[in-house]
């Protein structure tokens, strides 16, 4: 690791950390679709998948429905949302991960 450990927390990466499975795959597809201008990094550790992008991203309920081809309530995401980086805004139509500040 070349980064100085004292600087490791100075970043702007946000995003969900999912437990694996079909729903996680759909949610990652939804992230790509709902945030077309963002690049995502995906770290898959079997038990969890860390998905991160710069500063802000959103997952919309409607996008999840389109991808899954069935009705979807945003709250269902909780079953796989083990953690997240950044702050969260979990509403009925979307979930958003973000930072207020930029470093």
């Amino acid at each position, binding site marked *: 690791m070349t980064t100085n450990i004292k600087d*490791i927390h100075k970043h702007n990466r946000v995003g969900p950390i999912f437990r694996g499975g079909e729903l996680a795959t759909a949610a990652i597809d939804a992230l790509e679709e709902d945030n077309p201008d963002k690049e995502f990094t995906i770290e898959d550790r079997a038990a969890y998948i860390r998905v991160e992008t710069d500063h802000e991203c959103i997952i919309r309920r409607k996008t999840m429905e389109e991808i899954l081809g069935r009705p979807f309530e945003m709250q269902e995401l*909780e079953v796989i949302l083990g953690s997240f980086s950044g702050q969260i805004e979990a509403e009925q139509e979307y979930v958003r991960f973000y930072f207020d500040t930029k470093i």
Partner: protein
Amino acid sequence: MALLNRSDWYDIARDTNWTPKYVTEEELFPKEMSDCFDVPREKWETYDEPYKTSYREYVKVQREKDAGAYSVKAALGRMKFLDSADPGWKSILKLHYGGIALQEYAAGMAEATMARFGRAPGMRNMATFGLLDETRHGQIQLYFPHEYVSKDRQFDWAHKAMHSNDWAAIATRHAFADIMSGRDATSVALMLTFAFETAFTNMQFLGLAADAAEVGDVTFSNLISSIQTDEARHAQIGTPALKILIENGHKEGAQKLVDIAFWRNWRLFSVVTGPSMDYYTPLAKREKSFKEFMIEWIVGQFERNILDIGLDVPWYWDTFLEDLNTTHHGMHLGVWYWRPTVWWDPAAGASPDERDWLEEKYPGWNDTYGKCWDVIIDNIKNGREDLTLPETLPIVCNMNHLPIVGVPGKKWDVRDHYLDYKGRRYHFGSKVDRWVFEQDPDRYAGHQGLIDRFLAGKIQPANLEGALKYMGLQPEDCGKDAHDYAWVWNYNKPDKVAV
């Protein structure tokens, strides 16, 4: 019948800030139970929980989570995995369940404190779900190990440990009482939900889940990561509370509570998660080192979040970063040496290959911790197991109640940080532990650690045998080397003679 959108009724349903008629506001929400900062009620009304749920959604989602966890357990027929599991991994399970299951119930009581005494309606609402979450965590983590009790009585400690005076139980109770049962609702929101549940629970419930998946313990991996999805939700009780405190001029006080809780949790997890990841997990199955997981979850994720919400890094941040290289190695050495005093069988994790890994992850390990293991290895080889076993008790810290550790070998830095207060000398494992004590000395001063009890004559006979009895350990419960020293004989293989 079509249901209303949650957002159409949520604000009205949540608003339970009635004006009391028969008692005063202060009687309904006493400062010492509700909010030690005494932020006015109308300020608390701006509290908006960022991760909302409703009872209907909660029941549906929790049912699905439980169905997942229990069906994986049933489908995989756990007993077979356990039979073939590495003894080091079994020790991780025993340590996890004994150290955590009953504290989940205690966490439920802390959620109940916020559900009743929280100043914001949204906090009370989310904490009610949090209370149900913690009840689930207590029950499920007693149920899963229960089937092993008939095979291995150390698993009985899943239920027993927290009721005992084992040193590890004293340390755990002391730390959690300090951030949960011994605090007002607002402090609980900061110290438990923010500083603990958005930080260290990720280490034990997701980081360790990654190792569990590698090892093939799908049931455990699935169970603990499922638990963490509850944590991710109710951990968000703290964020809006922190923002309100900062907005109302209490940044310094809030920072102090977060710093205390963070440090206390760090020390506790250095003895639980540290040895589990770097020594007990079979070498080939280690996803990352403890330090690497700490960098991912705590340094990278949690600490960045602290800044975003408006706090600063703790004043001891540099010390903490240094400790990532050392503390848990010392804790591990202590736990292994005092193995008869724990309810699991510590894996040494010090075979030649494992040492290579440790040296790579922690440069200098061989010249420091390795020196102690060299002596242990020689003693075992020479048939002197007795020299690798304790005859007395270690000095423990009067704050974290864990052995006082430092770096041995070439970088020797072991020292006692002490403080004299009201005619008594207190010993601390670090300057930060002493700082915690100094923030509120009378809060901590009356507590007797294991060594204090020993010196006060409460442990009889006053030797290791008496101490084991006091800790509730029967001879069959007492920890042994997990691999019965098989790792020592790897040093006899020709290509490793030089070690």
